[in-house]
């Protein structure tokens, strides 16, 4: 399919079309003065001047909290009822290529052997409309981890901003093409206006991903004195994990009364001290640096090694939100330097 033009004034047509059918239109919008991915019902709620939204859009496929079962107690025993995900068509408009690239990562975890349909059904019902980056900040490092600011991986439609504030649109997947076909009155066949230049974050010379992977692969290095040193300032708040598009850890928690309740799947964080705590009191990751080491290991060894996907997409959120400025790229550089 050729490139089409999505004029900004036609966005309402698209939003109406999606939401009228019961769908969800997610786009960058202001929330507490911060740009985040959130549901919108009109184009005037949307923000167009942003680098990367504060949250990742994983919460629309993998909600912060969701019920998986309901139970109630009767004289005859326990009644258990399954709660199915009820996916609706979800458009993620204005995704960035880094976030789009993370879909494959989450999917790889949620589908190896056992399939978590709470995740897959929602992701299957989503159309990711990515806008190539025309601006960035010092925290952006996608190019260092092999993601391009106008990359297509994980996107269904790739948009590029034009100088006039409109978007050129290019279908990347079948799903994207059929979406553009379905909402063809929003897209124009004649493309006009010059596309804005793509912002290329600087590739961090000091980072050697191959070397990091090799170093992590050697289990002797797990006991390296480097770990307590680099992670010393981490306070274990978990902000990096909640904002990270590839972090997938969760808890299964029962909530309710003596008569009935729900089992919920809630986001959790490997940075919390109780995360791996055994009932016996034993904790395999009993100090903060061990928890931080686990996260780094997950990103640069477990994801690429076990799931053949990216553990880190370089969105830079963990750097932006860290209250103690523990910059993951500095640790990547540090490990790349180890002789």
């Amino acid at each position: 399919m050729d490139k089409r033009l999505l004029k900004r004034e036609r966005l309402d047509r698209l939003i109406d079309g999606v939401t009228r059918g019961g769908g969800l239109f997610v786009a960058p919008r202001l929330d507490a003065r911060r740009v985040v991915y959130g549901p919108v019902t009109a184009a005037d709620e949307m923000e167009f001047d942003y680098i990367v939204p504060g949250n990742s859009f994983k919460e629309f496929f993998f909600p912060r909290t969701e019920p998986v079962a309901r139970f109630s107690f009767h004289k005859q025993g326990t009644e258990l009822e399954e709660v199915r995900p009820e996916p609706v068509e979800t458009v993620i408009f204005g995704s960035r290529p880094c976030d789009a690239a993370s879909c494959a990562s989450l999917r790889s975890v949620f589908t190896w052997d056992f399939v978590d349909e709470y995740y897959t059904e929602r992701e299957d019902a989503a159309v990711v409309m990515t806008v190539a980056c025309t601006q960035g900040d010092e925290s952006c490092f996608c190019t260092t981890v092999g993601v391009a600011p106008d990359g297509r991986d994980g996107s269904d439609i790739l948009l590029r901003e034009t100088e006039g504030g409109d978007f050129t649109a290019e279908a990347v997947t079948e799903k994207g093409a059929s979406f553009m076909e379905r909402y063809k009155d929003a897209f124009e066949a004649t493309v006009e206006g010059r596309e804005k230049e793509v912002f290329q974050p600087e590739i961090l010379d000091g980072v050697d991903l191959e070397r990091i992977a090799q170093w992590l692969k050697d289990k002797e290095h797990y006991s390296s004195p480097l770990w307590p040193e680099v992670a010393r300032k981490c306070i274990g708040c978990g902000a990096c994990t909640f904002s990270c598009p590839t972090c997938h850890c969760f808890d299964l928690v029962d909530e309710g009364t003596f008569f009935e309740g729900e089992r919920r799947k809630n986001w959790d964080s490997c940075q919390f001290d109780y995360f791996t705590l055994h009932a016996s009191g034993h904790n395999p990751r009993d100090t903060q640096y061990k928890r931080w080491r686990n996260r780094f290991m997950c990103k640069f060894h477990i994801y690429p090694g076990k799931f053949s996907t990216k553990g880190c997409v370089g969105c830079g959120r963990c750097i932006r939100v860290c209250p103690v400025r523990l910059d993951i790229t500095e640790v990547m550089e540090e490990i790349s330097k180890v002789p």
Partner: protein
Amino acid sequence: MSNIYLPHIVKIEDIYRETPDVRSFRLVFQDKKVRESFEFRTGQFGLYSAFGYGESTFCISSPSTRKGYIQCTFRATGRVTNALAQLNVGDTIGFRGPYGNWFPVDEWKGKNIVFIAGGIGLPPVRSVIWTCLDRREDYRDITIVYGARTVEDLVYKNELEHWDERDDVYLVQTVDPGGENADWKGRVGFVPTVLEETAPKPENTVCVVCGPPIMIKFTLQALENLGFSDEDVYTTLENKMKCGVGKCGRCNVGDVYICKEGPVYTAREVKRMYNDF
């Protein structure tokens, strides 16, 4: 459509009070179809729900050779196990599983087996013991070395008595120094020491080890001293788990997911793992 987080409802058919804080449940699937079709292999585990409190992970402690029910054994330690401990016969709980890998008992045909367990580490080993005893003719000498802190902490006392009486099982029971009482007829000493004294021969023999981490550590050393090779020593690991199916991110030891690639490993595999215990 399958919901990987949805448990089966199981009914508590019987409760055995093993020690003051250890219970065994004999569980039967409420759904007839599941009851008839459910199969597992010895060494696999499940997640048991006390609805309203959550789920907890234990092995299936009954042998895979016996159908129609499963058994689990747990110590009332945390929120879920304390809630489970208060239930009565006839109450219903949840069960998801079986998950994980198993002990390759079929490959052990024609071999001697030494079972070594400490404290609450006996339940997973019990499943293997009975699986092998139910097909006794497939194996040669069967030795069981079991120890606990005190006489009171020994689980499955009736079965220990039964194994002790059998001619085709050699049972060595021990309690830690100071844990004995006036009636105690077994040994006094830590499991690794008693194991070395028992001195099983490594030729054509496999070992199954389970117990607290410190006991496993010294037992593996003792087995090495006795000349056992790491490939013939099997153990079952545990870690905190929530999903049991490789998603929730808790049980990994370095890059190894205990719930999926384990919980059963040879000593060789354990030694190759990251130091993340």
